[in-house]
């Protein structure tokens, strides 16, 4: 029963059905229990995606067993059930003799799903994290009037995310790209009474929309260049368009779309504001799943990026800048969720850097980091959520302190998360960070490696910064003397079982997952069978000698240890050392710059929002006073002409007679000439 096709369809359909059921029955029937359909549906999807992974693993084993064919063929299965739109030969054949893909110009969009290792991995990650977050939010959202609405939106979100990941043509990818944006808009603005939440939702949607404009332009260019929007068709014919400027333009535009969605450097301003939403939302959407959609898209389009090397440089560069930017800002933030948000931006930057290397090693490292990051970032967010839950909604780390003894489970899981994210040896974070460092080091050796040398160094600097901005909240919130904010009331105690269980599971995941994948080499091996990665395989990356691997690993660990020690020294002691460091930093104005989040929001306001609003008002005024009054004046011209002619009618018979005679004379003059 569980062949790949039914699984592939089952995974997205289950959450959709659950979401629709909750929406329909939520208010009257389910009320208190409206989480049941969605959580069960997501759980079943998770099981299905695990089965899918196993099915694909079997196929890969068969393929590997066949002699000689190695990884060339790749494993994929496309399910196309339903044609959305079909306009045959909508575009004339290319004039300037460019190569023509089969089925050129058929604007045939089908709702087609694709199952290959990359999709399977993403599906597994998305459904697993969603399940855990759903369970967590049973406790977190209890008693909220919009309880059913929350779960309906979460169900809708999981449906869109799973469809996005398994879409098989660019248009479908874009459709669910926007639907995911809609779900984030709805979930950020979940508590719509709070104007800040509503504004944050709108801001998120608009910034995404700006990114989507780039994405759409990319799709249009793909359509005009390749004549088809299907992944298969495009990736096969990329070969013939190697040097074409269009492919580079496409990749840059897709990058712009990815930046919009994954909150990269120019368009990252919406993610910190998105923290207005409930914390499970932040954990699910703004840490693990939605923001990684950009990374997934770039991974999916590797053939395109392979054909446009300077686009890969751009990806790496954007990634590097964002990583550094996120890390520097996160250090000085005071709101725990904002810190985690900026750390997410920073880690996404690392993934972009990894993908930017353009080598199979780099891409698998990026995806590996995506998986591990999903686990420990979700863990950290849920931990922050349980702290907020316990402390009555206060999340400002300066007002919390010494909660170690009151929230033991949260503390230990949060600690596990921190250790993992920082990259202490056995934990997952270490392996993925190490893989990225290795791929950077390897790539810097190859052609054009200068940029990657710098990126390798900045990543190492990043490793140190991670220790600071992760352990700072840990020490301030959980260590030191106990500071309990008044909002917490007297009952500051550990969160209920339904919230702590997912924390424990995630903690276990972020500890074990890295090691498991590293030792069994399963992850890289599994991923390398994605058909679209074949172009990388051919580019012949030599095996990495173990000496380099150990050297990179040791450098990474040493730096991490130094960082943790410095953080402990600074933050466990009294505040004097921190104040002195802050003043030292402020000499170059770095501290105020970092605390002010590099003033991107005010800059964007001044550069984009305010000018547009004033142009709008000008246009409104122009429309009323200029065009409208011009039209009214044209309407009044006949009346003015009438006013000019009225005096002629003065009632005197002889004047009329004179006019008649004059008329006759004029007529005579004309006729006799």
């Amino acid at each position, binding site marked *: 029963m569980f062949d790949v096709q039914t699984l592939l369809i089952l995974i997205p359909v289950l959450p959709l059905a659950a979401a629709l059921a909750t929406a329909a029955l939520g208010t009257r029937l389910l009320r208190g229990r409206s989480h049941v359909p969605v959580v069960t549906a997501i759980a079943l999807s998770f099981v299905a995606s695990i089965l899918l992974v196993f099915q694909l693993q079997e196929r890969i084993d068969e393929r590997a067993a066949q002699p000689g064919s190695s990884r060339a063929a790749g494993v994929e299965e496309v399910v196309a059930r339903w044609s959305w739109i079909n306009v045959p030969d909508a575009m004339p054949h290319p004039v300037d003799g460019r190569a023509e893909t089969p089925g050129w110009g058929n604007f045939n969009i089908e709702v087609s799903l694709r199952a290959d290792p990359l999709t399977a991995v993403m599906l597994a990650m998305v459904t697993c994290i969603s399940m855990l977050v759903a369970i967590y939010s049973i406790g977190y959202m209890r008693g909220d009037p919009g309880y059913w609405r929350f779960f309906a939106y979460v169900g809708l979100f999981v449906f869109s995310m799973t469809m996005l990941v398994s879409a098989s043509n660019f248009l479908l990818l874009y459709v669910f790209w926007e639907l995911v944006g809609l779900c984030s808009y709805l979930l950020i603005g979940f508590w719509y009474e709070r104007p800040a939440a509503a504004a944050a939702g709108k801001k998120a949607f608009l910034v995404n929309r700006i990114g989507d404009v780039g994405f759409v332009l990319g799709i249009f260019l793909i359509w005009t260049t390749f004549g088809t929007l299907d992944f298969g068709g495009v990736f096969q014919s990329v070969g013939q368009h190697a040097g074409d400027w269009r492919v580079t333009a496409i990749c840059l535009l897709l990058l712009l779309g990815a930046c919009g969605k994954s909150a990269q450097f120019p368009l990252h301003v919406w993610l910190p504001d998105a923290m207005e939403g409930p914390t499970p939302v932040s954990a699910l959407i703004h840490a693990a799943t939605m923001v990684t959609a950009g990374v997934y898209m770039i991974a999916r389009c590797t053939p395109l990026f392979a054909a446009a090397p300077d686009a890969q440089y751009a990806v790496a560069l954007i990634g590097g800048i964002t990583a550094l930017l996120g890390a520097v800002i996160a250090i000085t933030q005071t709101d725990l969720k904002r810190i985690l948000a900026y750390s997410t931006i920073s880690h996404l930057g690392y993934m972009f850097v990894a993908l930017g290397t353009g080598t199979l090693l780099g891409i698998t490292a990026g995806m590996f980091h995506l998986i591990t990051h999903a686990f420990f970032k979700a863990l950290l967010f849920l931990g922050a959520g349980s702290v907020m839950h316990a402390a009555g909604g206060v999340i400002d780390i300066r007002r919390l302190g010494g909660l170690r003894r009151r929230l033991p489970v949260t503390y230990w899981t949060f600690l596990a998360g921190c250790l993992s994210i920082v990259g202490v040896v056995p934990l997952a974070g270490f392996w993925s960070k190490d893989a990225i460092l290795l791929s950077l080091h390897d790539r810097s050796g190859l052609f054009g490696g200068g940029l990657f040398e710098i990126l390798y160094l900045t990543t190492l600097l990043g490793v140190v910064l991670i220790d600071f901005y992760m352990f700072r909240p840990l020490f301030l919130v959980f260590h030191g003397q106990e500071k309990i904010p008044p909002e917490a009331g007297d009952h500051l105690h550990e969160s209920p079982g339904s919230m702590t269980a997912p924390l424990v599971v995630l903690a276990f995941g972020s500890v074990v997952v890295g090691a498991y994948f590293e030792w069994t080499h399963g992850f890289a091996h599994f991923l390398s069978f994605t058909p679209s990665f074949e172009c990388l395989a051919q580019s012949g990356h030599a095996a990495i000698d173990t000496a380099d691997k150990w050297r990179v690993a040791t450098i990474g660990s040493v730096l991490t240890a130094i960082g943790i020690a410095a953080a402990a020294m600074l933050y466990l002691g009294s505040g004097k050392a921190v104040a002195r460091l802050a003043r030292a930093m402020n000499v170059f104005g770095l501290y105020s710059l970092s605390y002010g989040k590099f003033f991107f929001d005010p800059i964007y306001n001044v550069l984009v929002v305010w000018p547009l609003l004033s142009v709008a008002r000008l246009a409104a005024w122009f429309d009323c006073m200029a065009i409208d009054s011009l039209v009214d004046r044209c309407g009044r011209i*006949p*009346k003015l*002409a*009438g*006013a000019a*002619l*009225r005096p*002629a*009618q003065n*009632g005197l*018979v002889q*004047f*009329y*007679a004179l*006019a*008649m005679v*004059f*008329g*006759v004379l*004029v*007529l*005579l003059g*004309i*006729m*006799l000439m």
Partner: protein
Amino acid sequence: MTAADLRLLVPEIVLIAAAVTIYLGGAFSTARRAWSWIAAAALLLAAVALWSQNPSADGGSLGCDALARYVQWFALAAGALLVSLASRPLRFDGTPEYVGSLLLTVAGLMLVAAAEDIVLMFVALELISIPTYVLLYLGRDDAESQESAAKYFFLGVLASAILLYGFSFLYGATGSTAFSEIRAALDGTTILPPGFAVFARLAMVLVFAGLCFKVAAVPFHFYAPDVYQGTTHANAALLSVVPKAAGFVVMARILVAAIPGMEPYSWGVVLAVAVLTMTFGNVMALWQDDFRRLLAYSSIAQTGYILLALAVGLAARDAPGAWNGIVALWFYLATYAAATIGAFATMEYLGRAERRLDSVDDLAGLGRTRPAAAAVMAVCMFSLAGVPPLAGFWGKLLVFGGALSVDTSGTAGWWFTAAAVVGVLNAAVAAAYYLRIVAVMYFRIPLATPPARGGRGAWMSAVACALLVVGIGIYPGPLMRAGNFCDQQLPRVDAGAKHHSPPFGRQKNPPPPQSAPQFGMAATKKVSTPNAYHIRRTLVLSQTRVTTSCHIIFK
């Protein structure tokens, strides 16, 4: 006075006899309503007589072609509507002479249509204008009415003098008073004595000027607003229909038929006057408060469109079949007359003997107080504005279609296209004041409920006009076909002599023109040589008519 002539004149004779009896009877009993019924009976009788006339009778100075027949039916219809409109006297003393004069004007119009001779044409024209002077005076007995009568009289007399002077030169240039001979003399084939071409042109100008007064075209329109404002609704309706129709008949007879190829650009004058009239009428109407004054300017504007049709008739005279001005002229005249009489009839019906509805504001909120009357008025207004589902639209279609179909290869075509664009924009401006009346009726809060005691007759004619307008709007076929025959029948000179390049740079071989339909309507080709017998007969004939009319007036 052959029997045929007499038989041709039976309808007119019936009307004039009725008028005489009414004048005489009026001395004894002043019951206007009774005399109106008699007048209606007379009109009915005349109609029957006209119907039973066999069309091919060959009258000396009385032509009986399709144009005559069309205008005679038009006259009878207009007469019937006006008689029923004026059936209830607005003055204390009943003044039955009013109805008599009305009948005379109708008879005059029928005669003008049938006249084939300058003399008879002049007499018929006077037979219209003189009773009109009387009607204007008899309408109301206050200062304004007398002022309007005076103005119309003096300017009318001046215009007829100018017209006559034109006739004299026409007679002088061609040497005969019969249109057929005039046509033969001026069709370019016979060589005129040296100076006479100037006289012919002079004649054409003076005749056109004289007729422009009757039709209220721009240089001669000054009387219209003041006279309309001063008289009753019935008189205003009469003035806006009968003299205008007469003017256009004479123009059609003389300008289009009698002076054919004399001037290649004779249409230039007519076009200029048309555009001026159109624009002047529409632009001035925007300011008016008084209803009749507004409709006066509207009728001036509508004259502009009809003159445009005439100009098209002049320029593209030989365009086969489809579009030429004469057809548009007759169709447009009929629809315009129906709508205008309808509007005046409604206003007449809404008023009362002593409190007449004058200003547009009196109509405020009519939609609520008198919905039926408001509907009729709205239909008339929309038809005048030319909004599609009604008759006015078809009129405009023919006029502007004709204007566009004038050959665009020569310069004529571009002038006509420009005139069409100006005409169309004028229609948009005209829609403003027609719409204003509708807006006042439906959007304003009613100030006072109009008494609506203008008599059932007025209401009957208003409803008849509205139905006519809507009927023609829905199915314009028959009226267009009638209009088309007038054009087919107009005796015209074969323009083969002059090469007319086809419009729109069209093919040299225009599609073969439809063969003239044989409805038993033999084209009257009448050749008569001036002889003593002919002269005596016209003398006797016209003599009787003039004396009777003078006699009546002197009662």
